[in-house]
């Protein structure tokens, strides 16, 4: 509920909440914050910086490949830039952007909670993420960046063939990044299960939260495989263990299995939050509830689940037994079913509603277009002979950029516009926003579509240059031109948002008449999110005017205001029945101390100071004890 007209009694309750939830001002406030909205903003600006870095790397790659025999980058630098582009966009941009920034900001607001289930762990996962990003980038800046591609196949990544420190930056950095993601995913699952407002049973939970739940489970079950893989790799590179070399009983294919057991669910981890954003934007602008709401919720969970059974389709060309290939080809075909359910639900909702094509919905239109194109080329790869013919060509690059850029980033861009008024309290410029859509749409198509053709013509991925007589020049030049148009579109979005942040007209609490709970509170939301914990009776609670009036009356009566401390409700897992009122921790310096200590463990491991690494493990343990020493009730 937006706090506009208040009775004196209600006013005094709101003032009391303001006092209880206030965080220290200035830099100290940001370093010790446990407010999910501030942490989300930290995530947002950090991932945006990494997006910029990854984008510059992409433009460098495209400049190098614009014409034959390019000389912009040396082969050594090209390998590092190409690897870092992949690592950055996947681990340092899209996942922390969708989960860390969008998820963190929106999930507690959408479920009517005042914070995440573990506010301090939330801060910890941000600081660990920041540390992992800086850690990996230090490698690039000292000229020892990861250089074996983002999936880092052995034996190329073994010490004998790659003696520098690049692979160590990669492996240790990704373990650190995995710690951050595991902490984040644990937090989301506990928050979504336990933190929902009274009355929000699972079937009334917003589809965005279903997507975040599916993603969190996928992360929990996928990341350990990558972590173990990187541990094995480091043990082999540093201490001389044998996991991946045939001479001592190891097997290089083991790396690929473990990597893709993580890596394929990872693809769905990347696109599922985008689905969640789409299912938030579409009902608002189509002015109706999502078609087939329960089916879409199930499809989101099913995509995450099936994602664990398809990893070997990345390995069709490695010489696995035919039976294995056929199993994985069939499993890969199955992904079509939940994906199609969602595509039809999205488009039907738009068709059956009274669609108003403002910028966020335009971006969703772009998303659906690219998702269908990328999905159709994805089905082709499930056909084993086709996959074996096109493996490691630009056809693959085209396919996964349509998914990872077209389908995953477009909803993020649309979501930036959509929730901009909520976060800043101001409106963006609609005309510029529409122009930026057409520019990015054109840029994306021009960059990635010709890659299909040039891939079928035989251009292999990861090459740093190519000779002039192969008929690839026109396509590559168009890709480069497209990349710069795309970059211009992205810059236009940034200009629009930065300008509107300071000059945009006031937005009010609910400029688009959205259906979910974040639109019931003021823009930007106060530290405590809601003056009264909302009571929910449907999946689109903001469209239930009577319920919101009832919330307003409760503020007068002092019901569900929860102002005796940092209080937030806890509910039963399935039915969302109010079960307990929790007193949550407030700002704490320990998350950042712990993150620094853990990062120093990794720095010491990287520089082979193993005793110092052990000492920092000890310091980490001590900080953990200190963290838990002051309990919320002891304030």
């Amino acid at each position, binding site marked *: 509920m937006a706090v506009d007209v208040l009775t004196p009694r209600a006013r005094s309750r709101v003032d009391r909440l303001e006092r209880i939830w206030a965080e220290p001002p200035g830099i100290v406030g940001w370093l010790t914050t446990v407010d999910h909205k501030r942490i989300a903003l930290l995530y947002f600006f950090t991932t945006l910086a990494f997006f910029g870095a990854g984008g510059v790397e992409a433009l460098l790659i495209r400049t190098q490949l614009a014409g034959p025999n390019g000389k912009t980058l040396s082969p050594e630098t090209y390998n590092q830039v190409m690897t870092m582009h992949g690592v950055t966009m996947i681990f340092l941009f899209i996942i922390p952007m969708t989960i860390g920034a969008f998820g963190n900001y929106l999930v507690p607001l959408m479920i009517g909670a005042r914070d995440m289930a573990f506010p301090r762990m939330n801060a910890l996962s941000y600081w660990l993420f920041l540390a992992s990003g800086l850690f990996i980038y230090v490698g690039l800046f000292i000229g020892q960046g990861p250089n074996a591609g983002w999936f880092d196949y052995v034996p190329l990544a073994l010490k004998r063939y790659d003696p520098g420190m690049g692979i160590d930056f990669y492996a240790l950095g990704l373990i650190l990044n995995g710690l951050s993601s595991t902490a984040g995913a644990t937090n989301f699952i506990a928050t979504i299960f336990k933190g929902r407002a009274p009355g929000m049973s699972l079937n009334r939970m917003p589809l965005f939260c279903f997507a975040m739940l599916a993603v969190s489970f996928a992360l929990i079950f996928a990341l350990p495989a990558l972590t173990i893989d990187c541990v094995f790799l480091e043990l082999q590179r540093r201490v001389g*263990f044998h*996991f991946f070399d045939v001479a001592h009983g190891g*097997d290089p294919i083991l790396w690929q299995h473990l990597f893709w057991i993580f890596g394929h669910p990872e693809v769905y981890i990347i696109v599922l939050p985008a689905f969640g954003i789409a299912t938030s934007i579409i009902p608002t602008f189509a002015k109706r509830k999502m078609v087939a709401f329960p089916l879409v919720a199930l499809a989101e969970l099913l995509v995450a689940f099936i994602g664990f059974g398809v990893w070997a389709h990345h390995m069709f060309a490695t010489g696995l037994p035919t039976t294995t290939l056929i199993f994985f080809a069939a499993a890969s075909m199955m992904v079509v079913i939940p994906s199609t359910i969602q595509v039809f639900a999205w488009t039907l909702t738009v068709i059956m509603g009274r669609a108003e094509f403002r910028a966020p919905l335009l971006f969703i239109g772009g998303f659906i277009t690219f998702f269908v194109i990328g999905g159709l080329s994805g089905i082709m790869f499930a056909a084993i002979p086709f996959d074996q013919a096109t493996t490691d060509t630009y056809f693959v690059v085209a396919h996964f950029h349509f998914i990872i850029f077209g389908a995953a980033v477009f909803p993020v861009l649309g979501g930036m516009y959509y929730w901009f008024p909520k976060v800043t309290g101001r409106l963006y410029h609609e005309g510029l926003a529409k122009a930026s859509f057409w520019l990015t749409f054109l840029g994306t198509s021009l960059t990635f579509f010709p890659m299909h053709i040039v891939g079928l013509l035989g251009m292999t991925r990861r090459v740093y240059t190519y000779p002039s007589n192969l008929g690839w020049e026109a396509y590559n030049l168009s890709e480069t031109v497209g990349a710069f148009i795309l970059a211009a579109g992205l810059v236009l979005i940034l200009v629009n948002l930065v300008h509107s942040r300071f000059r945009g007209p006031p937005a009010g609490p609910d400029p688009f008449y959205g259906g979910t709970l974040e639109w019931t509170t003021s823009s930007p939301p106060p530290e405590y999110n809601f003056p009264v914990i909302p009571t929910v009776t449907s999946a689109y609670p903001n469209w239930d005017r009577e319920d919101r009036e009832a919330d307003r009356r409760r503020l007068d009566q002092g019901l569900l205001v929860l102002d005796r401390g940092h209080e937030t409700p806890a509910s039963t*897992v399935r039915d969302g*029945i109010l*079960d307990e009122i929790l007193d949550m921790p407030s700002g704490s310096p320990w998350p950042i101390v712990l993150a620094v200590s853990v990062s120093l463990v990794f720095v010491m491991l990287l520089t082979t100071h193993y005793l110092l690494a052990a000492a920092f493990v000890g310091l980490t343990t001590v900080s953990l004890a200190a963290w838990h020493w002051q309990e919320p*009730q002891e304030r």
Partner: protein
Amino acid sequence: MTERSVPRSVEATTAASAARIARERVARPNGWWGMAVFVAAEATLFGTIFGAYFYLRFHDLHWPPPGVEEPKVVAPLILTGVLVLTSVPVQLALFSARRARLGAARLALIVALVVQAGYFAMQIHLYLDDLHHFSPQGSAYGSIYFTMLGAHQAHVLVGILLDLWLLVRLASGLTTYRLTALQATTFYWHFVNVLAVLVVAAQLSPRL
């Protein structure tokens, strides 16, 4: 449903009221869910290690390789049995704490801690003994053998540290926070004990 009918953690000022809140809530506390999800991640981690163990085993003709003796059977089995039994005092500690019987909870925790520490010391002894006989750098068998056992013992050590921390905190009384911590630690130990059985099964599998 109003806030007056549900437990409220700001009201937990004594051991009795903390225990009452823990009994009155219907769903499990956030801390339990956090531990459950963490355990799911850890189980996957060990699943991956077991997967790698058997993947490597079935790619090799000789497992263990020539020159490496087969794993000892008796000592690891007995030790595992002893560790699994500590699930009983750990659960007893939680049972007592939920009824605000703090002395009984501490005693059960101390019993568990002593046995677990003894187990850990014996396991380290066996680990060092193995290192004298064959090396992780000698073969894929040695690599995965020592990685798997090392990972498991690290988990036992973490559990011991959790016990110690709980004992220190319980010395100054019971709060809902500590009770949830005890509940989460209990869950963790049951998981580590199940893991011990699976690890010893994988460790002894060349004998089958």
